[in-house]
C-alpha cells in the first residue's frame, strides 16, 4: 500500500514541471523579477518591463504548455515573427506623436543620422566576433534604439537571434536613463550643457497634414523594405493631425497601442527561456547592443558639437544624444541631464525634434542595409 502510494506520487511528480526544473530556470526567473522590480522601484519603462518580466518568469516554469503551438505565449510570438505587431506599434506611436518640434527646426534632423554610428560599429564588431553578415546587421540595429525596428530587422535577417535582439533592444531602451548620461557628460562641458535654445515656431495644421503624406510617399518610393513600419507611423500621425478622424487616432494611440504592447511584452518575455537564452551568443548580443547604444549616444553628441562649428546660433550638444530613436525616452534623458546643470533650461520640446528624426534615421539605416544585403 505504502509502496503503491509512493510510486503513484512519483509518477505524478514526473508529470509536473518540478522534475525538469534546473538552475537556468531559476536564473531567468530572477531576471524576470529584477525587471519587475526595476519597473516598480525605479519606474524604468513599467509598460514594457512588467509584462516582459512576468512573461519571462512564467516561460521558465518547466512543463507549461503556454509556449507550445496553440499556447498563449506561442500565439503572441506569432504576432512578432509574422511582423504584425511592429507595424501596429508604429501605428500607435504615429497617432501619439507630435512631429511639430521636428517640423519647426528641420536642421536638427541631421542629428537623427549622426546618432546612428553605434549601429555600424556594432555591426562590424559582431562580424569580427564571428556572426554572419546578416546576424551582424540585425545586431547592429539594436543601436538604433527602436524596438519595433530591431524586431523587424531581426525577423528579416536573423530570426534565430530574435529573442536576444528584442530583449537587448527593449531592455536597453528602458535603461537609457542609466546608459546615456555618463556618455553625455563625458563628451560635454558644463558650459555646453547649459546652452539655452530659442523657443520653436508654431507649425501650421497644413504642414502637419502634408508631412505624413509626403514622407509616406517618399519612403515607399525610396526604401520599400521598411515601408510597412513608416507607412503605419505616418498613417497614425495623419489620423491625429487631420482632426476629423480623432476617434480613430484615439483608438490607435490608446486601445490598439495598449493591446499591441501587452502582446509584445508577452511575446518578448516568452522568448527568454533559459535553455535558449543562457548562451554565450546572448552575452555577445547584449554586450554589442550596450556598446552600440553608448557609441550612438556619443556620436550624436559629437555630431551636435560639429554642427556648432558652422552654426551661428549654437545648439545644446545634449540634443545630439536624443538623435538615437527610442521616442520619447532619449528626449526625456536629454531634458533631465540639461536640467541638472541649469534648473531653468527646459529642452524637452527641442529634444523631440532629433528624437523623432532618430526614428527615421534607424528606419533609413535598416532599409539601406536590407537593400544592400538582398
Amino acid at each position, binding site marked *: 500500500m505504502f509502496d503503491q502510494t509512493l510510486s503513484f506520487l512519483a509518477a505524478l511528480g514526473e508529470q509536473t514541471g518540478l522534475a525538469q526544473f534546473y538552475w537556468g530556470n531559476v536564473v531567468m526567473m530572477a531576471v524576470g523579477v529584477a525587471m519587475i522590480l526595476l519597473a516598480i522601484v525605479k519606474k524604468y519603462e513599467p509598460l514594457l518591463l512588467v509584462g516582459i518580466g512576468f512573461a519571462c518568469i512564467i516561460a521558465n516554469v518547466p512543463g507549461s504548455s503556454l509556449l507550445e503551438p496553440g499556447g498563449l505565449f506561442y500565439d503572441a510570438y506569432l504576432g512578432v515573427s509574422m511582423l504584425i505587431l511592429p507595424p501596429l506599434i508604429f501605428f500607435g506611436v504615429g497617432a501619439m506623436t507630435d512631429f511639430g518640434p521636428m517640423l519647426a527646426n*528641420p536642421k536638427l534632423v541631421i542629428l537623427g543620422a549622426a546618432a546612428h554610428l553605434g549601429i555600424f560599429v556594432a555591426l562590424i564588431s559582431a*562580424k569580427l566576433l564571428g556572426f554572419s*553578415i546578416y546576424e551582424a546587421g540585425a545586431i547592429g540595429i539594436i543601436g538604433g534604439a527602436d524596438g519595433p525596428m530591431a524586431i523587424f530587422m531581426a525577423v528579416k535577417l536573423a530570426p534565430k537571434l530574435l529573442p536576444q535582439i528584442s530583449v537587448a533592444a527593449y531592455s536597453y531602451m528602458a535603461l537609457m536613463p542609466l546608459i546615456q548620461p555618463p556618455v553625455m557628460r563625458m563628451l560635454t562641458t558644463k558650459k555646453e550643457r547649459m546652452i539655452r535654445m530659442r523657443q520653436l515656431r508654431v507649425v501650421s*495644421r497644413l504642414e502637419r497634414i502634408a508631412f505624413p503624406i509626403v514622407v509616406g510617399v517618399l519612403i515607399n518610393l525610396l526604401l520599400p523594405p521598411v515601408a510597412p513600419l513608416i507607412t503605419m507611423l505616418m498613417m497614425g500621425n495623419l489620423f491625429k493631425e*487631420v482632426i476629423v478622424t480623432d476617434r480613430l487616432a484615439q483608438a490607435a494611440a490608446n486601445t490598439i497601442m495598449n493591446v499591441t504592447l501587452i502582446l509584445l511584452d508577452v511575446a518578448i518575455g516568452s522568448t527568454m527561456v533559459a535553455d535558449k537564452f543562457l548562451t554565450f551568443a546572448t552575452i555577445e548580443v547584449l554586450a554589442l547592443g550596450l556598446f552600440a547604444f553608448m557609441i550612438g549616444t556619443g556620436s550624436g553628441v559629437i555630431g551636435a558639437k560639429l554642427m556648432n562649428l558652422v552654426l551661428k546660433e549654437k545648439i545644446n550638444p545634449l540634443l545630439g544624444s536624443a538623435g538615437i530613436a527610442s521616442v520619447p525616452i532619449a528626449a526625456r534623458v536629454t531634458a533631465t541631464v540639461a536640467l541638472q546643470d541649469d534648473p531653468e533650461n527646459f529642452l524637452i520640446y527641442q529634444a523631440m525634434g532629433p528624437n523623432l*528624426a532618430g526614428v527615421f534615421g534607424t528606419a*533609413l*539605416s535598416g532599409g*539601406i*542595409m536590407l537593400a544592400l544585403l538582398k
Partner: protein
Amino acid sequence: MNKDTTTFAIILSVIDFFLCFVMIAGIGLIISLLRYLDKFGKLDEDKMRM
C-alpha cells in the same frame, strides 16, 4: 561577391551611414519646404473640429 566578410561589413557600414545622412538631409530639406504651403492657404481648425 561574397558578402559574408568583414570587408563587406565595413563597406556596407560606410555606404549605409553616408546614405543615411544624405536621405535624412533630404527629408530635412523637404520638411523645411513644407512651411511654404501656408502661402497657398490656411486650414480653419475650428471648422475642422465641428
